[in-house]
């Protein structure tokens, strides 16, 4: 029998609800973005995000059901992101999911947002195991091995800043609008990598480090300003992006060599970066490995990936009870 999961995602600044069939087919997906509002403040303001989720939640639900032409009765389970994220924002989705589950006597499934990003790769495609999973987002930079559904082994993670956070900070210092990542990439396309930025520490682990690179860019911009020199912004964006992505490539290459695994999935908001995709494709070609990256729509925060990640839990009968609560941290 087909499994339909109604999934809710509200961990940051998008209120999203999806209906996903058998963990892979998106029947409907609605995303209400608050990006324009938060752009006014140069970043996400948590209290405003929580307020906007509250106002949007039933309207988004209504649209998701209408687009799918389905009723809640037809759902097999209700899934919701419960960590990691802004707790006040997560809570809106969680309370809504619990209430729907209670009102319709459906099982509730709590989903880790990061695992959701990985499972975005199961939509319209199929993850095969064992595989390497690289998570690159505003809050996380991690490299994992997945032996099977929900079997994770962490190889390494960032010791300081996440790569997405680093992109956003660099965007800000270059005077680019929020959200900074896509704007840095756009600018980098028009430049050349002429600035000499420090490579993150070359150690022999799988860990990442981005704070040194971030500080180097900030200092370079400030020092140039003090000397009254013009910054070639597009060249700096290009140089920064190249060093930042190089760090990812180096660790993935090491994992290809040491684990012998021939599959790589990339997950999280930064997987929307076109330069990252090109470079990783080249790397995968070199090692005859298969690369999976979600469609652009499923790279950024969305509820379809939560529905996809909830599916294996549904099959295993791993349900949450109504004391499910939000958490800002959420290691895999």
């Amino acid at each position: 029998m087909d499994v339909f999961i109604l999934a809710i995602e509200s961990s940051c600044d998008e209120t999203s609800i999806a209906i996903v069939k058998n963990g892979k087919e998106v029947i409907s997906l609605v995303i209400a973005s608050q990006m324009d509002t938060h752009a006014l403040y140069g970043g996400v303001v948590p209290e405003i995000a929580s307020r906007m989720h509250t106002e949007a939640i039933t309207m988004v639900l209504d649209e998701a059901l209408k687009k799918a032409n389905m009723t809640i009765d037809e759902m097999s389970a209700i899934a919701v992101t419960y960590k990691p994220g802004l707790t006040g924002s997560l809570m809106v989705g969680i309370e809504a999911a619990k209430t729907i589950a209670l009102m319709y006597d459906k099982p509730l499934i709590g989903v880790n947002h990061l695992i959701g990003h990985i499972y975005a790769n199961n939509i319209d495609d199929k993850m095969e195991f064992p595989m390497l999973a690289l998570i690159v987002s505003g809050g996380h930079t991690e490299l994992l091995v997945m032996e099977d559904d929900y079997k994770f082994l962490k190889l390494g993670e960032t010791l300081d800043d996440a790569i997405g956070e680093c992109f956003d900070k660099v965007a800000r210092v270059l005077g680019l609008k929020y959200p900074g990542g896509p704007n840095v990439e756009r600018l980098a396309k028009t430049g050349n990598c002429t600035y000499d930025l420090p490579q993150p520490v070359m150690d022999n682990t799988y860990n990442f480090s981005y704070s040194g690179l971030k500080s180097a860019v900030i200092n370079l911009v400030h020092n140039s300003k003090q000397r009254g020199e013009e910054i070639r912004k597009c060249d700096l964006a290009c140089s920064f992006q190249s060093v930042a992505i190089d760090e990812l490539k180096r660790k993935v290459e090491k994992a290809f060599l040491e684990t012998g695994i021939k599959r790589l999935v990339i997950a999280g908001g930064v997987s929307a970066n076109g330069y990252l995709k090109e470079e990783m494709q080249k790397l995968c070609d070199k090692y005859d490995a298969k690369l999976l990256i979600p469609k652009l729509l499923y790279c950024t925060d969305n509820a379809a990936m939560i529905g996809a990640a909830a599916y294996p839990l549904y099959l295993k009968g791993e349900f949450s009870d109504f004391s499910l609560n939000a958490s800002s941290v959420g290691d895999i």
Partner: protein
Amino acid sequence: MNTVYIDTHFKKLVLGLLKDGKLVDKKELLSNKHSENTVRLLQELLNDNKLAAKDIEQVIVINGPGSFTGVRIGVVVAKVMGYTRNIKIKAISYLQALDLEYNRDITLGISDKNGVFGGSFNSRHELLKDYFYLSFDEIKKSNLDITILDDKDVDMELIFKYLEDKEEVNPHVLKPLYVKRIDVAND
């Protein structure tokens, strides 16, 4: 007619079940984790009274003011109950709910850790001016005649009666009454 009453605006979580306006069951919990407890206790309330979701005809929700997160929990639960099961939603502020016991002009307040949420009502329980939030200092300096009622229980049956001829709220439109301004600071 079964009515569920939900109040999550501050430290005490209160759920009530009224049958034709008579309070028949109540769940109370002092906690700072309403998010873990509200739906769980609601389920208990329904189970204890052998009720299913379809048996609920109305939900009364305290829409604020109080803890932002606390108020949001009750409001989101009420919105989703209303939208998914076509349950009639009635909303009332905690201050107005308190005022129902006073049949004269009065300014009532409830305090949080930094100040006081207040509202002035006439003898017909109508709000006279906008709700306000003042710090303890501002309250002291003003010569406001305000009755501060903290940790006071409200009368659910009285609220039910007061709301009987009041309009229901569309679930999409229902939102918390925050009153207090927020500081938006961002580096």
